[in-house]
């Protein structure tokens, strides 16, 4: 019989495993199709054989193996998308299973029964690890099924080894989440620490070839253990042992800390004097920002103030890195241009770039990450998450009843919250824009300040458009309606529609309905000024916001 807590953990994760599993399967099928398209292109094959190797590593491409299915998949699937999926899943699962339950008082409940803390902790950790194993197994099976269909000639042991390595990476970051969580007792901190560490490790491992100062840390990055040499082609090696040993060590450390700490009190492991000092500091801070606690508009900004720093900092850093890498890219600009013209456009379309030639300009290069692929995804996530926290979640938690019991109209409360989310999005955009201006100046890319401002505006408006969409779906559908998930699906679909629409005549006309088309279409945002279509984004956001507010005024508040 499955132990009770482990079984419960698995059951809790069931839906997430299914969701992530579907996504990851769709992705591998898509990449399989991509690869076959690419393989047919003779220009590309010939070209790749003559390309400088260092250049490609910035795109996660190993030129020696890229032409094989294994090489292609390890660059796209296993270095980028699969870890992103798996890490997002495990960090979220670990933080929810232990830290969020502790915060909610559920661990008190659980531990009032005669089960030891060690058992609770290990069963929960095991449950998360098992759920991650199921997720990875889904991917592995999908690859094994796709393999003969697209004639990818992947070795079965290679696929299994890659799956194992991916799973170990997931377990390691789950363990890191638990260490951070048991030390601080806070789920937000745990997720933040593990997420940042994952990003840092990925960054160090991915950019160390290009960026000499990073090389020293390369060996210490779990991403390096995970994929160098890549298990898909080279099987299991020392790297996987490192992953396993480190993960086991972290789990042991977290278990020990969990055994001896106070439950549901913050910073339980710090000495008493330090707690007092932190408490005093906190008091000071809350007084300093107290002016924000007037009205729902300011309160929303108050709630998002940390997120603004986190997301803005990450995106600003990414922008700076893109600028700093550009000079070394420019040296090989010609070779790069050759790559672009020979690479199937489908590959670029998938990353939101319908005019691949643009990538050899600084505007196109910086845009490719900050304003066209990762940037929009993160901004949309930021806005949608803001709407979700400030409104969707508050309603389902019942906090809305309280917010609406004050003598103010519903319209003004909801409009204040929506504007608060919009304002905090603006702050993130300001941080990105400042980073871009600094980068532009420092690396002399001569992009022009007005273009940087316009690109930032477009990015922000794109985010607000999807925020408005979430708001409208929520206001029309009610608290239990999956507004966030529907927004995510629509964002994904319209993103691909814009990219693929540039290739297929059938989709060309449909493409004009994609907000991503209004935002960048075929031209990198940094290569153009303020476009009239940006007004479409703004108008869309305003109309959906208005619909949401007027509808919300008339519907029942759920509990």
């Amino acid at each position, binding site marked *: 019989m499955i132990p009770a807590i482990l079984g419960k953990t698995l059951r809790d994760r069931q839906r997430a495993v299914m969701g992530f599993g579907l996504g990851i399967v769709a992705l591998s099928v898509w990449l399989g199709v991509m690869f076959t398209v690419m393989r047919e292109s003779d220009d590309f094959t010939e070209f790749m054989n003559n390309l400088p190797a260092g250049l490609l590593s910035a795109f996660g491409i190993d030129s020696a193996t890229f032409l094989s299915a294994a090489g292609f998949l390890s660059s796209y699937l296993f270095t980028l998308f699969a870890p992103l999926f798996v890490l997002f899943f495990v960090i979220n699962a670990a933080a929810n299973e232990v830290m969020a339950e502790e915060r*909610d*008082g559920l661990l*008190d*409940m*659980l531990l*009032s*029964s*005669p089960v030891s803390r060690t058992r609770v902790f290990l069963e929960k950790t095991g449950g998360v690890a098992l759920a991650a194993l199921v997720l990875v197994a889904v991917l592995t099976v999908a690859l094994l099924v796709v393999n003969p269909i697209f004639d990818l000639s992947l070795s079965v042991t290679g696929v299994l080894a890659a799956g194992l390595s991916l799973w170990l990476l997931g377990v390691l970051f789950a363990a890191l989440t638990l260490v951070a969580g048991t030390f601080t007792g806070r789920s937000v901190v745990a997720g933040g620490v593990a997420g940042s560490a994952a990003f840092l490790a990925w960054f160090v491992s991915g950019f160390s070839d290009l960026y000499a100062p990073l090389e020293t840390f390369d060996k210490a990055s779990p991403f390096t253990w995970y994929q160098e040499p890549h298990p898909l082609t080279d099987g299991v090696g020392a790297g996987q042992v490192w992953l396993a040993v480190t993960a086991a060590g972290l789990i042991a450390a977290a278990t020990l800390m969990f055994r001896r700490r106070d439950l549901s009190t913050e910073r339980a492991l710090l000495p008493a004097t330090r707690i007092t000092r932190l408490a005093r500091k906190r008091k000071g801070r809350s007084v300093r920002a107290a002016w924000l606690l007037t009205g729902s508009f300011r309160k929303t900004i108050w709630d998002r103030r940390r997120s603004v720093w986190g997301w803005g900092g990450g995106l600003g850093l990414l922008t700076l890195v893109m600028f700093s890498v550009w000079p070394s890219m420019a040296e090989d600009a010609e070779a790069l241009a050759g790559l672009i013209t020979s690479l199937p456009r489908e590959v670029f379309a998938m990353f939101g770039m319908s005019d691949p030639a643009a990538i050899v300009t600084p505007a196109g290069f910086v845009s490719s990450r900050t304003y066209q692929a990762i940037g929009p995804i993160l901004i949309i996530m930021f806005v949608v998450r803001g709407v979700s926290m400030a409104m969707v979640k508050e309603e389902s938690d019942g906090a809305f009843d309280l917010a609406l019991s004050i003598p103010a109209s519903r319209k003004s409360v909801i409009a204040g919250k929506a504007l608060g989310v919009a304002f905090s999005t603006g702050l993130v955009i300001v941080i990105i824009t400042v980073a871009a201006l600094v980068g532009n100046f420092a690396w002399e890319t001569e992009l022009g300040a007005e273009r940087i401002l316009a690109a930032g505006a477009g990015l922000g408006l794109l985010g607000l458009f999807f925020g408005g969409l979430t708001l409208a779906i929520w206001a029309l559908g009610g608290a239990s309606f999956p507004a966030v998930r529907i927004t995510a699906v629509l964002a994904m679909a319209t993103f691909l529609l814009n990219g693929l629409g540039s290739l297929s005549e059938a989709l060309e006309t449909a493409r004009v309905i994609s907000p991503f088309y209004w935002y960048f279409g075929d031209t990198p945002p940094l290569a153009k000024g303020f476009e009239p279509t940006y007004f479409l984004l703004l108008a869309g956001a305003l109309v959906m916001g208005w619909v949401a507010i007027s509808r919300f005024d008339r519907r029942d508040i759920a509990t």
Partner: protein
Amino acid sequence: MSRAIETSGLTKYYGDTAGIVDLDLAVDVGEVFGFIGPNGAGKTTTIRLLLNFLKPSAGSGSIFGLDIEGDSLAIRSRVGYLPGDLALYPSMTGREFLLYFSRLRGIDTASVTLRLAERFELDLDRRIKEYSKGNRQKVGVVNAFMHEPELLILDEPTGGLDPLMQQEFAELLTEVRAEGRTVFLSSHYLPEVERVADRVGIVRQGRLIDVDTLSGFRSKVQSNLTIKFGSPVDPAQFASIEGVTVIDLLDGGTLLRLSIAGSQRAVIGEASSRDVITVTSEEADLDEVFLSYYGSDAHTDPAG
């Protein structure tokens, strides 16, 4: 008589904020012990120390002679706990939740669960997030009682229950006591405790101020006595009795108002040798006693 709960010098600080300080507590097996005090007095901290959720800053404690830290597992198999801030898994049904917790205990509690659910009119087949506050509380009550534990630790157990259910709950506690089991009942709400408790401990600002039986507390009650005499009396003769304060003397020395701590016997005796017309006693009720303990002046040393 053996002890169900015993602590000595049990102390918990959060930083330099006192949770509970130097707690010496003794709860006998088979009694219903009320643990009362205002919000933030240290009641929940004490309970969470007893269940090993918190590690004591100093001192020690035992339940059924077992150490609260070292033998926590053995203790928890004999204890039923109802937290004051009840947390349940919202997506489970009541039945699933109770099944899960009985499996964690490794025992079959189905028959008791059903009986309790019926008794408290709880529909077990709805999701916890759909329950009203009262129904969620009932799930917590069933969870605490379903394995028929020797000791029940209940933190404000009747919050959210309607008066009928509160009555039912009080009867349940009475039955539990009749079976020789022990109840540790923490509350800031006196009637909840008054209805069932044998003894009461009062905690304030992290310190246990007084422990006594309910009748003991009643005997400490300050009462006011108004005596009407046929002829004027000398108030000094009453003022000299221990525990008596003269409030005033009216109507030309014939209407005497006294404040009496404890027994009125000596005063009645003194008065009866005189020309008494009427005696009116206003007894402060228990509420007022506890309110006086809760303290209007928060800065005086509660132990003093």
